[in-house]
């Protein structure tokens, strides 16, 4: 009995070791749990002001579900003041179905793929000799430059916005607050419009 006991223990240890090795060999590359913890549990949708104009506009076009999903996205959020002053009537009446297309285009112009922190934008500006072009989820681009220590973003129609608060981390991306609304390029926006008096 005494002879068999150590052998059984060895067998169990071997089996467990084999299990552990097998499981780890099937895993995806190691993710940094510290980085995930630093991002917190709140999604982008949850970290936005639920009574704010940006969230109301996102909800009106069904993008609130997008910002609560897996992402990851980088979202540029204009202040309520900026949204109130934006050109056109679309953002003033977000729930009107006729404004839905325009709002979708404006909001997807403020959503970028992946997590782009302010440092990443700064490095890209440095590498790009003073400017960096950033792709948006709407299929267009905007340009980032530096003005003093601030990051300035330029959209279509000469629209410009400065990042007022950067790197608000969420579990599915990052939010940068900006002080103006960036408008998608006019050429693309008007190109697809049907003729008048259809």
């Amino acid at each position, binding site marked *: 009995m005494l002879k*068999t006991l150590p*052998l059984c223990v060895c*067998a169990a240890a*071997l*089996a467990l070791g*084999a299990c552990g*090795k*097998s499981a780890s060999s*099937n*895993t*995806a*590359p190691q*993710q*940094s749990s510290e*980085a*995930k913890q*630093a991002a917190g549990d709140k999604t982008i949708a949850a970290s936005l002001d639920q009574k704010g104009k940006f969230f109301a506009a996102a*909800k*009106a076009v*069904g*993008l609130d*579900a*997008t910002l*609560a*999903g*897996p*992402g*990851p*996205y980088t979202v540029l959020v204009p202040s309520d003041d900026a949204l109130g002053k934006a050109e056109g009537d679309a953002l003033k009446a977000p*729930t009107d*179905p006729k404004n*839905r297309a325009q709002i*979708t*285009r404006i909001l*997807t112009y403020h959503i*970028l793929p992946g*997590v*782009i922190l302010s440092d*990443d*934008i700064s*490095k*890209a500006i440095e*590498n790009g000799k003073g400017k960096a*072009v950033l*792709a*948006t989820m*709407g*299929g267009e*681009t905007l340009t980032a430059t530096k003005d003093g220590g601030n990051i300035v973003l330029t959209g279509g129609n000469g629209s410009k916005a400065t990042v007022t608060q950067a790197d608000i981390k969420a*579990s*599915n*991306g990052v939010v940068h607050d900006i002080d103006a609304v960036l408008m998608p*390029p006019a*050429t*693309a926006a008007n*190109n*697809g419009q*049907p*003729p008048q008096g*259809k």
Partner: protein
Amino acid sequence: MTRLILAAGVAALAISAPASAGPHGGGHGNGGVHAADQKQGGGQKQQQARQARGGGQARQAQARPSRGGGERARQAQARPARGGGQQARQAQVREARGGRAHQVRQAQARPDHARARQVRQAQAREQRGREAQIREQRGRQMQAQRGRGNESANVRTAERVRGNQRNDVRREMVRRNEALGRNNGPVIAARENQRVALRAREGGRVNFAENFDNGIRGCPPGLAKKPVACMPPGQARQFVGQRLNVLRDEVAFRDLPSRLQYVYRDTPDYYYRYGDGYMYRINRTDDVILSLLPLFGLGYTVGQPFPAAYPYYGVPAAYQPFYPSSPYYDYRYADGYLYQIDPYSGLIEDVDPLLGYGYGYGQVMPLAYSAYNVPYQYRPYYYDTSDYYYRYAPGAIYQVDPTTSLITAVAALLSPNSLAIGRPLPIGYGAYNVPYAYRTTYYDTPYNWYRYSNGGIYRVDPATQLVTALVVSALT
């Protein structure tokens, strides 16, 4: 002797343990492995159910374990030799996957699911009955109007012959280009990729009609198979000014999905009803239809003549490389949809939706998006349930209400300028954008860059700016 037997036992245990742990171990967000695992234990009954449902079977297979203990018990009976060990492992895998996907699913889950489903089924039966009556009535009207079937059949045959000739010409042009060494590769390949993604739906059109049995029905027989709202806009416009109860035999009116009531909001003066691809605004005091809004572009469908009011190309710049007009195909953009038109007959041949150009939330998902077509990396998050379907179309994954076919949310945005191995890094990806969890593993060096796009992290050669590899499929 005893030692010899025991040593043999030890060796056997050491060999068998990893083998049994292998296929069921892991537990790291690997949807494919998990789905396959669940499928193995499904038994014949589950397979039948899956076949009957059409698209999205793999995801339903994943959803199944959460539906209650009965099924788990059946699985246990089917695999007595595996016992509880596998269940425990499955539970571990589910726990490990947990996190966000679980939260998303929980948010979608309904508390009194069974009761709500019974009520829905009863309503659907009632609605189907009404719609069948309407269909029959319309069918009779259509048959009376037809009477020139043979003639139109001849026209169709002639058109088909012309179509074949056009295909021959196209093939010849491709051959000539190849012979001349012209390289239209990137544009053509990109266009074809897009088309393949869009037209993966073709195969499952019949299934979709079954899945969306309560969807855009109530159509005349000829239009019921078409991939859009079935009522011609001219006919729909005639309903404005008429009372709702008079039209109940003509249109299968429905209540709106609850998520869309935020957009089409009832007021003390009027309320909204949905029917046959149109949203109707109705006066509350006398139930008269005040106005209607087509929820599928212009309300025109495949096989109908494209309206002459749109003579210009008009395709948004971002999509122009994918839809160039040619002697064989004409493209027109209108109200959020791209129409492919036969330049000879002027008939609409295909309809594609474009997010952000009018199409999206609150609109009808084209019936042709029949098969479950969500990209692999997003499948663990977005799979079909009895409450929602998910479909991919250019730019987004949409959440669709199965009873009305209306889009109830944009579940995820997908970048139109996606990265692809062997292609140049698209403009706009100069900045590092890898998700938090992967930043310590994949960071830029002088020899390699890493960029995130549509669920994957890609390696880029900084010198050539070419995408060299997909290093990991990553979603937070």
